[in-house]
């Protein structure tokens, strides 16, 4: 572990504008860092070297010509492999789409580009975003930069590892049940899932449509805020996009203080199954927030224990429907089967989906099937309401809720891969907010070591009521400003400077 003062996206952009660096230099730095570290980490599925260099050169010309520079001008960004960018392979970590080149560009990717960002590559992920460790990627796992024998979390595994290893200052992930926040926590970076509907899903390959939300991973809260300002705002191409303008940051008179803010701490998030190191770091973080002026209020979210089954019924039901389109007709792989149309469908899906995807399609198909629909899917939707009400009641008493992002630090690769229920429980602190559609952020709040082991990052989760994205960011910014956890980097972190 080292203390590294690598610049965040905000600082990189500023240095380009002052002429300290050129876009070309910044991109070359990122590409060199990827070259140096990615053989070991496998964060990237593809690196767009030439396209990134060409774009950097064009941006430098525009800067020299005095054109306006957008809020992400010259910033190298990685995108997750379920995000469409015209002409780029968008594999979703699956054999099914191994050669699929997106024919169009997602709204949120276009907004990144319009803001001046440079997409340098596509990151590894659990297949179709189903997983918490990267081990479900058809292209092999990503390794955690803090300890390469451990999982980086998932499913935005490569995005988190790429930011943690200083290959890029900024990456996009998608969060259905914690897939931005959990890998952010396990890799020691910042990750934000905004309120559902804040960022358009147009061009995000769907997993669970009522849950999926794009979110940034970065090394500072101000970068998250900057990206949210770029990506949020209504998109007529997504019928679930909130008809609201981009998120405006809160600008309090004393940003370093949180006086009077009521901080809810749910008992259910600090249960016996937390790692001791996670508990210590999170308790210290809560004390720090109290010192910053928060009033701690112990609260209950009583239906939390039902969040995992509820989530896995709802998400798999939606997935079984969304993934029905992968049938060997329109895109991707095709199997032959017995020569019939039905045989082709089945042969294609059998050959090209991995085990976890099949498991979830089976579960989702079962809970939607005749005779079981009301008892399983219908009931889960009602329990989802109870989980949502838990938060609504809590937010009558408090302004934000804080707790750990993950019950453990990064776990060894291989440890949970044959035990799906153990893997699902990795998400138990992130799925409740997903089901309720709330904004939630994970940021580094310390390091914890197993006995004799290397120190591993711990994530603090900050949750707000619906649409209070800016409040969540303000709380995280005040915490970040009073601590140095975010400055810790794994040994060997590259430098995209």
């Amino acid at each position, binding site marked *: 572990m080292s203390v590294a003062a690598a610049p965040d996206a905000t600082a990189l952009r500023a240095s380009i504008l002052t002429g300290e660096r050129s876009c070309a230099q910044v991109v070359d730095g990122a590409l060199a860092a990827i070259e140096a570290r990615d053989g070991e980490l496998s964060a990237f599925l593809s690196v767009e070297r030439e396209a990134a260099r060409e774009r950097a050169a064009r941006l430098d010309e525009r800067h020299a010509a005095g054109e306006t520079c957008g809020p992400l001008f010259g910033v190298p960004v990685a995108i997750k492999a379920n995000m469409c960018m015209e002409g780029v392979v968008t594999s979703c970590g699956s054999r099914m789409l191994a*050669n*699929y*080149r997106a*024919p169009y560009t997602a709204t949120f990717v276009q907004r990144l580009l319009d803001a001046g960002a440079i997409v340098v590559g596509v990151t590894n992920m659990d297949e179709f975003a189903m997983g918490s460790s990267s081990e479900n990627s058809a292209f092999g796992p990503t390794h955690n930069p803090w300890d390469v024998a451990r999982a980086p979390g998932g499913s935005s595994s490569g995005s988190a590892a790429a930011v943690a290893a200083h290959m890029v200052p900024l990456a996009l992930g998608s969060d259905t049940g914690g897939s931005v926040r959990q890998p952010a926590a396990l890799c020691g970076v910042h990750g934000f899932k905004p*309120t*559902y*509907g804040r960022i358009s899903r147009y061009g995000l390959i769907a997993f669970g449509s*009522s849950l999926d939300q794009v979110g940034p991973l970065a090394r500072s809260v101000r970068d998250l805020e900057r990206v949210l300002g770029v990506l949020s705002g209504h998109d*007529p191409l997504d*019928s*679930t*996009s*909130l*008809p609201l303008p981009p998120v405006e940051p809160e600008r309090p008179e004393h940003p370093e203080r949180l006086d009077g803010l009521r901080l809810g701490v749910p008992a259910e998030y600090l249960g016996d199954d937390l790692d001791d190191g996670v508990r210590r770091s999170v308790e210290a973080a809560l004390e720090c927030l109290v010192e910053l002026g928060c009033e701690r209020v112990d609260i209950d979210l009583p239906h939390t*224990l*039902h969040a995992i089954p509820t989530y*896995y*019924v709802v998400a798999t039901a939606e997935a*079984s429907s969304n993934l029905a389109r992968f*049938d060997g*007709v329109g*895109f*991707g*792989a*095709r199997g032959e*089967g017995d*020569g019939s*149309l*039905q*045989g082709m469908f*089945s*042969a294609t*899906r*059998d050959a090209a989906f991995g*085990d976890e995807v*099949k*498991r979830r*399609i*089976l*579960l989702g*198909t*079962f809970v939607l*099937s005749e005779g079981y629909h009301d*008892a*399983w899917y219908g*009931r*889960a*939707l*009602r*329990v*989802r*309401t*109870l989980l*949502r009400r838990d938060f609504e009641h809590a937010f009558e008493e408090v302004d934000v809720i804080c707790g750990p992002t993950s019950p453990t630090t990064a776990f060894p690769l291989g440890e949970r891969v044959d035990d*799906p*229920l153990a893997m*699902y429980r990795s998400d138990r602190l992130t799925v409740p907010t997903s*089901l*309720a*559609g709330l904004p939630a952020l994970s940021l580094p709040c310390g390091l914890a070591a197993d006995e004799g082991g290397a120190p591993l990052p711990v994530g603090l989760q900050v949750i707000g009521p619906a649409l209070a994205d800016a409040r969540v960011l303000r709380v995280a910014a005040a915490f970040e400003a009073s601590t140095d956890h975010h400055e810790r980097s794994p040994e060997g972190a590259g430098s995209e400077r």
Partner: protein
Amino acid sequence: MADTDRDLVLQTAALARLQLDEREAQHLGPQFEAILRQFRQLEGVDVGDAEPTTGATGVRDVLRADEVRPSLEPGVVLANAPHRVGDFYAVPKTVGGPD
């Protein structure tokens, strides 16, 4: 795995257009059963008068104006098709007798 469990898994796989081979049925079947067993805890939750939540925000079916817009060229859309004939997707014959 009991025969009834195995039947349920295979029946569900058929509905999902998944053609599980013997190894997969052996591997996925017991896991499927274990997951369902654990998730049966939802049966014990008192849901009272709770209406189902189908979307996180309450915003639903916001339709844009029905205006003609440019769309992708057929060649672009079909570029990823595993098998095409001209501007059409080609699939095994579904009606009539053999060719």
